């Protein structure tokens, strides 16, 4: 593995680390197995890509991508809490519908190239920029979850009955949790589109598995239950995942090829799930 490949793995790891933090919000914080992410990830990428193509500031495009992800999360939440559709199906339906919406956003074209457009990485070092963004997102998430509001959000994932007795509006909080989670996922999608220089409407397939793999690997490294550790576990787990995949695909002795990516990822998730889960504090 060359230095350039290590750097690329670090960059990709940090982008997907933010996506994993979004998945941490839904799967861990509010205990909602949300499958919207396969759609909201591409939604963020489409929104950011189309805005850049239209000449908008790339940073602004990321913020709008974040907002679009939040809206998709709100809709999943409404499907579940107001229309009483099961959590799994709400996410699947939303991701399914987002495929058409994403195509519409991209004007019917399945992909957009941003190679010649100005992105946030045009004049900045990608590794440093992504490092700073990751740090900012981690601090914001860690702080939010350590507040009275964050405690209420975590309560619905811990024990809905206690949450209700504590006066938490569980339905509203579920919608809010999904909005926060999907906003981070879409933000990650926007970052990836700018980093890669293209948007593909099919690029969201498997986002949930990659995010979960990162989250689970991270939780093995940092088996602590505090939200600060949880956020760090997402980023570090994602970087380890990317380095591992890069190593596996570039190693001659292992003999893996690019088409084996899903197989390796799946085996990693299984491995992470089989290893006993423990919390140290």
């Amino acid at each position, binding site marked *: 593995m060359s230095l350039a490949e290590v750097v690329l793995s670090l960059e990709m790891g940090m982008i997907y680390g933010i996506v994993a933090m979004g998945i941490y919000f839904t799967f861990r914080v509010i205990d909602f197995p949300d499958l919207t992410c396969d759609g909201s990830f591409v939604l963020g990428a489409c929104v950011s890509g189309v805005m850049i193509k239209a000449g908008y500031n790339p940073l602004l495009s990321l913020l709008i991508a974040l907002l679009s992800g939040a809206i998709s999360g709100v809709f999943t939440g409404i499907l579940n809490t107001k229309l009483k559709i099961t959590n799994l199906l709400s996410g699947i339906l939303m991701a399914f519908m987002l495929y058409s919406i994403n195509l519409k956003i991209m004007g019917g074209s399945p992909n957009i190239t941003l190679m010649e457009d100005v992105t946030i990485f045009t004049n900045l070092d990608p590794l440093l920029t992504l490092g700073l963004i990751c740090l900012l997102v981690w601090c914001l998430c860690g*702080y*939010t979850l*350590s*507040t*009275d*509001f*964050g*405690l*209420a959000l*975590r*309560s619905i994932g*811990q*024990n809905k*009955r*206690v949450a*209700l*007795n*504590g*006066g*938490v*509006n569980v339905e509203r909080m579920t919608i809010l949790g999904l909005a926060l989670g999907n906003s981070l996922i879409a933000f990650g999608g926007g970052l990836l589109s700018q980093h890669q220089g293209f948007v593909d409407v099919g690029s969201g397939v498997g986002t949930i598995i990659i995010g979960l793999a990162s989250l689970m690997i991270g939780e093995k490294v940092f088996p602590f*239950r505090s939200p600060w550790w949880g956020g760090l576990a997402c980023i570090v787990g994602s970087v380890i995942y990317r380095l591992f995949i890069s190593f596996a695909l570039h190693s001659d002795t292992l003999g893996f090829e690019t088409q084996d990516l899903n197989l390796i990822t799946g085996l990693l998730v299984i491995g992470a799930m089989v290893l006993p889960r423990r*919390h140290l*504090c």
Partner: protein
Amino acid sequence: MLELKNICVTFRSEGNLERIILNDLNLTINPGEFVMLIGENGAGKSTLFNVVSGFLKPNQGQIFFNHKEVTHTSQSFRSKSLAKVMQDPKLGTMENMTLYENMAFALKRGEKRSLRNISDNSRRELFREKLTLLRMGLEDRLDDVTGSLSGGQRQALSLVMAILSDSQILLLDEITGALDPKMAETVMNLSDQIIRQEKKAALMITHNMAHAIAYGDRIVVLKDGRIAKEFVDLEKKSLTPKDLHDIASSILI
């Protein structure tokens, strides 16, 4: 103060038959008063709790908390004035959170939850002070996860969580049902002490007749959705658990 006026709850069963669960029920509990609610299974005790907490809307009647009508308000709105302790200690606390986090959550019951960090020295002092009352050594375990506590310790923690906020009404749902006899006595003594100290209007469901006689100010016997009998003062103290059990099962309305 809790006041229930002419509460009626009916359910429609299969075949569209109407079943009366609570029938014109009237009950008032004053601040600092500890009322024991007994009755056979199906008498309407749990339905009454669900109506008071807002989980179930009555078909008729009015509910007042401190003279303010709350009949049509939501469960989350009522939680500001009302706290509940469940039968299963696991249901009353969040086992993967620390004692501190559980108490910080309970402290803001029914209030707006802001973006203020939960770590706070004054809160820590308050929590330590409240846990010291339990005499279980929990004040030194604020940073332990609640899952590491025994059932009795978790139930005692649930009680403390219930009195942390300003809620004036306390609903206790068979809180000793899952505890061993020694721990059950400890929890009952604690409840009695807390209710008197904090001047809560408390209603407790119990199937333990000895507890119903030994603790609290009044026994209310529920039968077929109505209050069939009440015992206070000397009359209450002169009862034996067997008498009370016989009355609860054989009373006719």
